[in-house]
């Protein structure tokens, strides 16, 4: 390691990220470009804080891509994936095939390379960067648009296509190499007959699906029951790493395996929680990955051949752009989505680094051919966020933007308008009532046993901590109308209010309050409604007590409502006066004082049954003489 080991390196990477990313975001360039710039800055060619080990870091950080696909899978219901089979195979297949052929032909025309080398280059450059595209689209909230979905389909196909490409490359060798065993191809099953390999690969895929469906949920339930949050995080990481190892052993793409696991788990009650746990790791590793890409751009090489590299980058981007636009058109994409799709995918991908080095090992390509190409791919990746900004700011506005609003409506479609945080005895009553009236809410609960039970009863409850903004986000808080807080922990309830107000200012909030101070705090937050958890049931019980004593139920009912109205008014007054007393101390004495004040006020003032409309006392006083007179008169007649 460069100077001082791990902590030094971590310090350099993290400070580069912390400085560069906010600046890039502020400039509207997105975080990906920020990371890339940070990488360039700390790389060997600018400040030189890190040296050639950038390559190793990149290898490690590629794990971020694996995690990202796991998260993408979690967002994707199997039924949705099935619906996407046409774009994945059609759009993806066509893109890879056409791009590979055209690039191969062009390479053959402009250079004197062997056809095998040209084909390897064509296949490798046909692939785009999953990491950069998905991250950028996600950040812009465009992943669920038509263009975004199609881009995703193509990337998914490319992930699958890597496997046969890796298999073909050794066959394209133009010179003998001594096989020292490149680690990419070193799998447990490579010495088995092809039929066994195929069977094992299928077996692994099926076992991931089966385990995801039947084993993982109960396992997570057990882990969640321990109540140790970090254990859950550890389990989530273990899951992703385990799948990665397994896939590598059988020679499949780890990203593909975790994606599959993600899809299987998309219906699990732990979906939101898994998302929340993996998200920060993904974010950090992807950031690291982008930094590493930035740092690995070989400026020495670029300075030596600026014309050549520029030509390759330009050619790569333009060729891919044209092919993508044509294919997008073919598949009936509207112009704005097509542009998003094309500009998004018009770059080389991180697979190129792997494939070129694999091709080098297998004698398919020469060092002096591969290096400029690798540099060009890195540059094209770095250009992508910039191209997308360009598209968004300059090109897109010229084409009908009205489709954008259609697209947004689609996104909202998937989420519920109401989120209920806390689905215990309190929240489940709310949920049942809403459901009975045709309103489906998204339910979140932090108690795994409860989640388990309610799931058995047919409620789709998600396990997770609603005070975390990322979980709220995953539950659709950005699009929802109303957040109902029904948790029984006052601090947690207040935390949720704070988080929700901070991150989702448009979300209306109503909350259960657990005690006097909790209630005051919530009122200070100006949320749309605060409900003292036991107040209404205590009042109903008190009302029934009156009924047992022989009071008329209608009289009791009116008394109840009157008392509640009065009490709530008084509580509001108390909350206000509490503010005037700046030195207010939260003590039990204050509570008792407040309560005393309320009771005394009850005795002095109202809350007594008057119901004047039905009281005939004054009417009789006034009219009885008149009635009597009339009666006497008629008696005389």
């Amino acid at each position, binding site marked *: 390691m460069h100077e001082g080991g791990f902590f030094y390196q971590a310090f350099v990477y993290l400070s580069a990220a912390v400085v560069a990313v906010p600046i890039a975001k502020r400039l509207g360039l997105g975080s990906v470009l920020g990371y890339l710039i940070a990488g360039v800055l700390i790389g060997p060619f600018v400040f030189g804080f890190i040296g050639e080990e950038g390559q190793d870091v990149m290898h490690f950080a590629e794990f971020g891509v694996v995690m990202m696909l796991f998260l993408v899978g979690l967002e994707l219901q199997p039924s949705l994936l099935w619906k996407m089979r046409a774009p994945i195979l059609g759009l993806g297949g066509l893109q890879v095939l056409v791009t590979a052929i055209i690039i191969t032909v062009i390479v053959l025309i402009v250079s004197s390379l062997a056809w095998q080398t040209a084909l390897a280059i064509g296949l490798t450059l046909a692939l785009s960067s999953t990491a950069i595209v998905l991250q950028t689209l996600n950040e812009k909230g465009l992943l669920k648009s038509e263009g975004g979905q199609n881009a995703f389909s193509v990337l998914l196909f490319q992930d699958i296509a890597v496997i046969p490409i890796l298999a073909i490359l050794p066959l394209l060798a133009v010179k003998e190499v001594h096989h020292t065993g490149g680690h990419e191809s070193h799998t447990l099953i490579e010495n088995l007959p092809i039929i066994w390999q195929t069977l094992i690969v299928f077996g692994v895929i099926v076992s991931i699906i089966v385990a995801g469906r039947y084993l993982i949920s109960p396992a997570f339930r057990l882990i969640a029951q321990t109540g140790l949050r970090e254990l859950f995080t550890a389990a989530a990481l273990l899951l992703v790493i385990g799948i990665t190892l397994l896939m590598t052993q059988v020679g499949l793409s780890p990203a593909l395996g975790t994606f599959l696991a993600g899809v299987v788990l998309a219906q699990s009650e732990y979906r939101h929680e898994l998302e929340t746990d993996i998200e920060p790791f993904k974010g950090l590793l992807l950031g690291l990955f982008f930094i590493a890409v930035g740092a690995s751009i070989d400026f020495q090489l670029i300075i030596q051949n600026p014309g050549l590299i520029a030509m390759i980058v330009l050619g790569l981007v333009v060729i891919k752009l044209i092919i993508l636009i044509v294919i997008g058109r073919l598949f009936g994409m509207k112009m704005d989505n097509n542009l998003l799709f094309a500009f998004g995918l018009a770059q080389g991908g991180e697979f190129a680094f792997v494939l070129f080095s694999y091709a080098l090992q297998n004698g398919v390509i020469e060092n002096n051919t591969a290096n400029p190409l690798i540099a060009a791919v890195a540059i094209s990746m770095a250009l992508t966020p910039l191209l997308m900004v360009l598209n968004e700011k300059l090109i897109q506005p010229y084409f009908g933007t009205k489709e954008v609003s259609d697209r947004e409506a689609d996104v909202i479609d998937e989420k519920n308008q109401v989120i209920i945080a806390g689905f215990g005895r309190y929240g489940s009553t709310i949920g049942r009532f809403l459901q009975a009236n045709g309103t489906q809410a998204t339910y979140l609960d932090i108690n795994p046993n409860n989640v388990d039970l309610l799931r058995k009863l047919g409620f789709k409850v998600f396990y997770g901590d609603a005070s975390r903004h990322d979980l709220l986000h995953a539950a659709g808080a950005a699009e929802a109308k109303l957040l109902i807080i029904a948790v029984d922990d006052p601090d947690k309830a207040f935390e949720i209010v704070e988080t929700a107000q901070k991150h989702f200012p448009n979300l209306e909030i109503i909350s259960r309050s657990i005690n006097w101070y909790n209630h005051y705090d919530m009122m200070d937050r100006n949320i749309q409604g605060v409900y003292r958890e036991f107040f209404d049931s205590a009042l109903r019980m008190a009302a029934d007590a009156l009924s047992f004593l022989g009071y008329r*139920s*209608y009289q009791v009912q009116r008394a109840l409502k009157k008392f509640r109205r009065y009490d709530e008014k008084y509580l509001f007054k108390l909350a206000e006066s509490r503010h005037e007393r700046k030195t207010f101390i939260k003590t039990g004495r204050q509570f008792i004082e407040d309560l005393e004040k309320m009771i005394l006020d009850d005795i002095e003032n109202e809350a007594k049954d008057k119901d004047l409309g039905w009281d005939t006392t004054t009417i009789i006083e006034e009219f009885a003489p008149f*009635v009597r007179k009339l009666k006497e008169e008629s008696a005389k007649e």
Partner: protein
Amino acid sequence: MKVLVLFAHPAFHKSRINKILVDGISHIEGVTFHDLYEHYPEFDIDIQKEQDLLSKHDCVIFQHPFFWYSTPAILKEWQDLVLEHGWAFGSQGNALKGKLFFCALTTGGPQQAYQIGSFHNHTINQLLSPLRQTAILCKMVPLPPFVVHGTHAIEPDEVLDHKNDYFKILKLIINNEFDSEKAVKLNYLNDYLKMEEK
């Protein structure tokens, strides 16, 4: 015949007259006494239950104090909800066909106050015409009202006399000794017994 008394008094705990009138009424065989405010303090009237009750009886009585020339609020809510189209009225609505209907009311003013040109300027029957027409639309047989007048200045003995009359009429109806064709010609159902005596 079976009699259903739909009783509505929002402040029964303050009642003087109706308290006496309904005392013991539920002990009369053939009478179902249904206290609406006690049953539905939150006005959440159970339509199905009310219709079932109506179907089981042959005579329906609205018993209530006369509030603002009409019934207390819950009886209006009851009509609005229970008397459904296709059940109580309309070409398919025959559930109440032929049942007797009348109001048993208490009112502070004496009968003389309920005359054209007098204090209220209308007769009780004029003021009750919406209810009477409701009964007609529901294919019921509307009878004149049973009225306890002058409750603002009434002696307990007088109330008891009224109660006796009221119970006697109920028993006649239950025992099928009641002639509704004669009754419809009266102004007040209170006069039925006197008419019979003659």
